């Protein structure tokens, strides 16, 4: 079957290097942001989130940076591993109604 990763931009990184995946959002009123990882044939998996009152949040091997001035979100993955190969996409919402707007995603390909 057709992969969700087709037609998406691709980031290729060497195993062990750090990866930076970027996302631009358009709604200046958005106050909550999430990064998801989606492996082939699976549902999106929550990675990390950040609220608009923060500009950085760290998880295990991942860091999310938020720049509200330019409406930009990035996901940094330290020491990228083959298991990190997937489609990554950001999502945003505004207010407490919990309806998310999703970006189209970027394919991360890890070279051994």
């Amino acid at each position: 079957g057709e992969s969700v990763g087709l037609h998406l931009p691709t980031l290729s990184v060497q195993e062990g290097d750090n990866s930076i995946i970027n996302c631009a959002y358009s709604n200046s009123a958005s106050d909550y942001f999430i990064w998801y990882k989606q492996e082939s044939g699976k549902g999106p998996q929550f990675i990390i989130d950040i609220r608009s009152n923060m500009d950085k949040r760290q998880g295990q091997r991942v860091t999310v940076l938020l720049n509200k001035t330019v409406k930009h979100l990035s996901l940094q993955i330290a020491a990228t591993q083959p298991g990190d190969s997937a489609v990554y996409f950001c999502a945003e919402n505004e207010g407490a109604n919990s309806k998310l707007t999703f970006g189209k995603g970027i394919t991360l390909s890890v070279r051994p």
Partner: protein
Amino acid sequence: DAGITQSPRHKVTETGTPVTLRCHQTENHRYMYWYRQDPGHGLRLIHYSYGVKDTDKGEVSDGYSVSRSKTEDFLLTLESATSSQTSVYFCAISEPSAGEQYFGPGTRLTVT
């Protein structure tokens, strides 16, 4: 997949036939969502539910209906399937106090 199952996982059906997809959760989350995912479009919201018998339309609701008679089940029905409804369908759940949504494994539907 956060206690979320979807059935069937794969289905091939003919144009004009009715189809029902089921989402079942064991997390007791109040909010449930149906999305479709197509190459080049990302995840698009079809319908959502904020509680039993409380449903509303998303951005691509034409041709779809939903029902939620129990907290744990959210059904998506295509009354008369069309080829444009060939897609991968994902169910998601969330809590009112949290912004993140958790996704099921998906149903790949092909309408011939």
